[in-house]
């Protein structure tokens, strides 16, 4: 009996132990299975396509792609950092392979060679119309060509049936403009407003020469005389046309034209004395920028690349269009970055959607915010941030009186020959006619 009691006691103890455990659970747990969900991640995932873009600025690319992918969840964008000047050659090498980009950005003067290598997809329909309407006219014209899509070659637009197609979307532009020191002008002339003509600048120089020399430097305006890019405005004010009317005829460099000789004559007779007879060697770009930076120069012809420098130097300055010469509005060279879709893309729809986004107001806002580049828009008022950037507004003002640098191969032979020509005339070592003829001969010899 005693045994039976012990066994019963132990059994009861163990049962009680188990029972105690079970009793606590219902008091604490809540089963929310009814609120649960079923997920089918393999079936619900978005079908995506991937495109590759070659851009030259990582910060810009990341911001642009993030915004684009958020708005276009079906498109993934792979970014590779490729310098814009290397894009065309790299695409020629990679075309046909999976490593080729779908969307690229390159300088406008590469567009001719890119078309000859059949690298660019044409832009058509309402997107093309939109670009032509919003972007700087001369830029969209530069990105247009008559093209035989059967032969994959550029053809003369006079060919019967030939139509101009757009191959690039102008993205950003730059040009030299007139930078002026507001505080200095106010002190000198009583007005911070810049001159609107070279005649006025020269007259002011004559009138305030003494004060200028005593308190500042002895220059009213500085020009980088040996730099044919900067000096192009002077030639165009006298009607000079580089490579003909459309900038595409290598037989019409026109360096020895009457218009160029007239410009050189004006330079020698009027501008040299107005710049106190400084030699071209003294008037190099860096020396000029240094003077303006120090607040010793009322005017300088310069480009957007110098804005940060002058802001950092706390110069109280403004930017506006190049003043007229004898009533003529000078035309400057502009450089335009073009975005384009690769002709061999396997994802044209996605690539064009990305291109559209790049050139949308949102995309251009991102461009400005991340790179401080000036969008190639005819009217910048739609972009709030840029509308308040008076410096870039000034560049934009001149950009509307600019011509994209010619894109033909012979452009490479223009720079040094023209630069030497300006320098020789400025220094008086050649007459305008001699220098012009020598430059033309040098250009012809280099071709």
């Amino acid at each position, binding site marked *: 009996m005693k045994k039976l009691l012990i*066994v019963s006691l132990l059994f009861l103890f163990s049962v009680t132990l188990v029972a105690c455990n079970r009793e606590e659970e219902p008091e604490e747990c809540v089963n929310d299975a009814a609120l649960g969900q079923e997920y089918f991640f393999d079936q619900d995932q978005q079908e995506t396509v991937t495109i590759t873009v070659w851009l030259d600025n990582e910060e810009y690319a990341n911001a642009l792609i993030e915004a684009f992918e958020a708005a276009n969840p079906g498109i993934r964008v792979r970014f590779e950092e490729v310098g814009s000047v290397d894009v065309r050659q790299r695409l020629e090498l990679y075309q046909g392979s999976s490593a080729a980009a779908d969307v690229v950005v390159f300088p406008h003067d590469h567009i001719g060679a890119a078309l000859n290598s059949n690298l660019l997809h044409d832009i058509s329909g309402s997107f093309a119309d939109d670009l032509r309407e919003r972007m700087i006219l001369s830029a969209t014209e530069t990105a247009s060509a008559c093209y035989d899509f059967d032969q994959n070659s550029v053809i003369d637009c006079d060919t019967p049936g030939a139509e101009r197609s757009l191959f690039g979307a102008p993205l950003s532009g730059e040009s030299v403009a007139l930078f002026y020191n507001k505080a200095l002008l106010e002190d000198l002339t009583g007005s911070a407003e810049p001159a609107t003509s070279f005649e006025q600048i020269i007259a002011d120089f004559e009138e305030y020469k003494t004060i200028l020399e005593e308190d500042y430097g002895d220059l009213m305006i500085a020009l980088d005389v040996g730099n044919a890019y900067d000096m192009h405005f002077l030639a165009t004010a006298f009607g000079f046309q580089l490579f003909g009317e459309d900038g595409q005829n290598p037989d019409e460099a026109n360096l020895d034209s009457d218009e160029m000789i007239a410009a050189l004559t004006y330079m020698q007779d009027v501008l040299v004395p107005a710049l106190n007879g400084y030699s071209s060697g003294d008037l190099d770009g860096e020396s000029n920028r240094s003077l303006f930076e120090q607040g010793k120069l009322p005017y300088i012809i310069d480009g957007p690349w110098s804005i940060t420098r002058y802001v950092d130097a706390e110069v109280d300055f403004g930017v506006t269009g190049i003043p007229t010469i004898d009533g003529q509005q000078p035309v400057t060279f502009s450089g335009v970055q073009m975005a384009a879709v690769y002709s061999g893309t396997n994802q044209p729809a996605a690539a064009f959607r990305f291109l559209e986004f790049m050139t949308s107001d949102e995309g251009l806002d991102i461009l400005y915010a991340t790179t401080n580049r000036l969008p190639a828009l005819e009217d910048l008022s739609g972009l709030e941030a840029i509308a308040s950037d008076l410096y870039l507004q000034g560049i934009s003002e001149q950009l509307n009186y600019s011509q994209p640098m010619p894109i033909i191969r012979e452009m490479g032979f223009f720079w040094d020959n023209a630069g030497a020509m300006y320098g020789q005339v400025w220094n008086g070592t050649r007459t305008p006619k001699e220098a012009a003829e020598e430059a033309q001969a040098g250009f012809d010899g280099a071709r």
Partner: protein
Amino acid sequence: MKKFLTFLFISAFAVVLFATGTVLLSAEENDEAPTDRKVVVHYHRWDGDYEGRTIWTWGNGSNGSSDSVSLSGESSFGGTFDIYVDDDADAEAGLILRYGEGWGDGKNDRDGLLDPENPDGDTPNKGIVLRDENGDFVGFDDNGVKHVFVYEGMGSEIIYQDEMFGPMLEDHGTLTIVFYDTDDYTETPEWDIWTWGSGAFVSGDHDMGVPLDTVLGVDGQVADMAMFRVAHIPIAADADDNVGIIFRTAGAWGEVQTNDLDIDVTDIKGEGFKTVFFGLEQQFDDFAQLEAFAMPASIENATAIDPQSALVEFNKGIAVREGEEILFDASWFTLEDKDGNPVAIDSISFTQGVASVDEFMLQFDAENSLNSAAAPYTVTFQSDPEDEETRTSFEIDINTTPPTIRIMGSQSVSLLLGDSYSLATFTATELIGEESRPLYDVRVKEGFGYLSTKEAGVYEIVIEAIDTFGNVAEETITITVEDPCDPEAHLGGNARVQTVIYGAISSVSLILAGAFVALRRNRGGQ
């Protein structure tokens, strides 16, 4: 008599006037001789072609030469250009050796090597020293002439005649030795030449060698990559017919030296100029041969970019066009699989509009696409079928490494019934050659994407990535959905059974243990 004297005086005056006028007129008309002092630039080109070459100069003073100067003649060294130097010249005159009259892009219009600090910039200018530190003109002889020498392919340096081992020393011929070290000077950076029989001051039994102190390269090369060295050995009139030379490490009899080499100098004893070319001990007829020896084209790398393209990279540019003439021929390239079977190349792309390129993309159609089963492939380049020296090959492997999947977040997740869940972000990369690049073909594997938070259980979501060559990688995210009211519910039916059995066994064991203890006590009590 008086009339005669007057006539003589007037005549003399007229003659003097005329002569003075002539001199003045000559000075005005002769733009090339405004001063008596001049620098003669001797320029040696390996092709010997000086027609149309010009130099561009500055800093030579008010009436000194400026801007473009044409070829004035040829010396035994090469083409010569006269630069006139005025009293108010700078301490250094600028010099650009131009290929012609005009300007190009800063590289294709002038001779020289690129600046390693700015290889994309213009070919740097050269400078000719005119004055010493005291401002005195330096290096001009009694006639006001100074000679300087430049070889095609030099950096911004200038060779001066007054240097001890300069070329064309007075009463000596010049033996110029262009030398290439097959180790690219990496192992033995300094070389000189031990020489005998030249009859000049460098002959004799002393330790001083002739330095290989002039450095030059080839067109478009960056200055610090220049691979050729030049030495000048003066050859006296009484030199032996053959001059002996040994290339050795500089200044002493070091570890590296060549055997004795003989050079015939009978044609330059006492005057004249002669150039010989050596790649270590091997002698070449001209600079082009030495350059081809020093820098043969070879494939440095070849990478399969995808099944239908392979990038082939060379150590130097391969000439693909000359002016308007296309030199490139697709037959230069062939491809074989691992068994030696030829693989047809559909097309070859490369950068257009340039004379030479160092990268080519081989492309294949779908039928001949590259795959790992047939790898490794061998790509061969041979620009001249008659010349085996132009043949170079490289093996192309096909990547078989699976892509790498990266999951942002834990791969082991615990949820309770009723919870909501967002799938972790995932990315993948693949290897192309040795380069890792983002892979966007990464997604939830079909049939492995189900999760329910309505039912306890263990769920596996499988992420799958497939790379360009079809290599597959998988990663799993394990999600455990627990029932807070049943800690074992997620373990599934079988697990419950095992738990009950385990519990029953535990209870029986306890009872048996108690019984055993009771029995022992009972026995003890008896």
